[in-house]
């Protein structure tokens, strides 16, 4: 190992774990050296905590500053950053949490992913109007590239909404399984809860199903006419919401 590589490994171990091996390499008196190295140790943790606070603003409010600080400290100790951009630090913070707080963490991270997900053009009703009736059965729809899904079993999303609206948090609720679809329209993030059959339809679209496939899936539980009506109703809503991408 070169002198430079050794020096860098020792500094990094000091910042991450407080190792003292670097100290003889640093100019100055021992007490002063510790003070100077301490600036780097402090800055490292402060910067990561700030990044986590920016990624999880509602979680921080819900937990309270001290509890959030403890969670952030545990996470920083267990997961040194590896990405070039600090924006990606903290994806697995939910592992330090349980119950509603874990789901809230997952939710806030998902919102962040949608915030700067790849841009996409949404399919419009005018695009569909150009289709010939014979094209419909083979029509393959694809989800808008910003679309993400999330499952919750607590009222984490209700808590997030309350905190975002600066109103008191709702009390804990009995477990209730909900699915959410989250997406972006232009630069504004949107979400809504969605029934399980619609989630299944979204998943089928993601796997390359045609409009006829969707109708056939639905027809297992209803008449063919009802299935076609349900699929058409969904499609109209999805187009209106900007959930379907345009082109391949």
């Amino acid at each position, binding site marked *: 190992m*070169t*002198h*430079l*590589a050794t*020096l*860098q*490994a020792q*500094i*990094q171990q000091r*910042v*991450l774990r407080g190792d003292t091996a670097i100290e*003889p*390499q*640093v*100019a*100055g008196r021992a007490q002063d*050296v510790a*003070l*100077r*190295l301490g*600036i*780097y140790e402090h*800055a*490292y943790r402060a*910067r*990561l905590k700030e*990044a986590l606070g920016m990624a999880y603003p509602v979680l921080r409010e819900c937990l309270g500053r001290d509890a959030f600080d403890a969670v952030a400290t545990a996470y920083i100790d267990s997961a*040194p*950053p*590896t*990405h*070039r*951009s*600090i*924006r990606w*630090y903290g994806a697995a913070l939910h592992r330090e949490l349980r119950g509603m707080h874990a789901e809230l963490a997952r939710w806030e991270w998902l919102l962040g992913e*949608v*915030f*700067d*997900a*790849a*841009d*996409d053009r949404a399919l419009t009703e005018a695009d569909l109007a150009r289709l010939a009736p014979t094209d419909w059965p083979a029509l393959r729809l694809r989800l808008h590239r*910003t679309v993400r899904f999330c499952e919750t079993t607590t009222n984490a999303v209700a808590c997030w909404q309350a905190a975002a609206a600066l109103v008191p948090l709702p009390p804990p609720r009995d477990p209730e399984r909900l699915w959410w679809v989250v997406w*972006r329209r232009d*630069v504004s993030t949107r979400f809504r809860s969605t029934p399980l059959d619609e989630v299944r339809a979204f998943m089928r679209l993601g796997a390359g199903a045609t409009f006829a496939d969707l109708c056939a899936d639905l027809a297992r539980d209803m008449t063919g006419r009802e299935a076609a009506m349900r699929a058409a109703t969904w499609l109209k809503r999805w187009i209106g919401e900007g959930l379907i991408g345009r082109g391949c």
Partner: protein
Amino acid sequence: MRQLGFGLGLRPDHYDAVLDGAHRIDWFEVTTENYLVPGGKPLHYLERLRERYPLVMHGVSLSIGSTAPLDFAYLHSVRELARRIEPEGISDHLCWTGVDGVNLHDLLPLPHTDEAIEHVAARVRQVQDVLGRRIMLENVSSYVSFRGAQMSESGFVAAVSEAADCLLLLDVNNVYVNSVNHGFDPVSYLNALPVERVRQLHLAGHSRRGHLLVDTHDAPVADAVWRLYEVAAARFVHASTMIERDDRIPPLADLVDELDHARRLAASALEAAA
């Protein structure tokens, strides 16, 4: 990089204010990593800003001095962003940010040795080949210096720029902070740098921790830094000036006023030097 005048660091807090009228701001510096994202609001605003202002990309994660291998995936994403916004210049820091797959997100100091010069210069040449242009390297603030140093900090910065044939971004606040932390004459530091390579000047605020100064970017530019800036503005006449503010960010108008102060000082310094 051509002389752009007087600019500010672009911060999301100011997106709307910047786009909402005409300001006495000649250009903006953008933090590269903030825009290495697939899409959405950051790139939306960046492209709208680019229609109205010259931009310079300023990175924090190149880790040019690290002994870890260069991250070519990162470099290619920087090149892609540069293709998209056509910046006037691309800069990063003369430092390292991590080894062994870790990125500490801190600008860590290099020893002032021949070994470090050779190491950094070889990597800068590779980076410049990938980006297809010369980059600017910024002198960083530091709180430690290493035993076995073979030269002064200014000698190290100058030697790297010559060996790598790169440009320099001179952070005047960092020179002042380091002059206090390590006990050297800041004017001698400026005089040791090659004039033709310094193309940009940074100004920022700092704070005090005990007998040390810390580069916090959370306060207005200090009086002592303004005095040093007068010397720098008279010497580095090809350099564009900008003010960085990353914490306790004031309204845009306050930063524009601070930028006006830089304009006045630079004009006086140039007049006095003529």
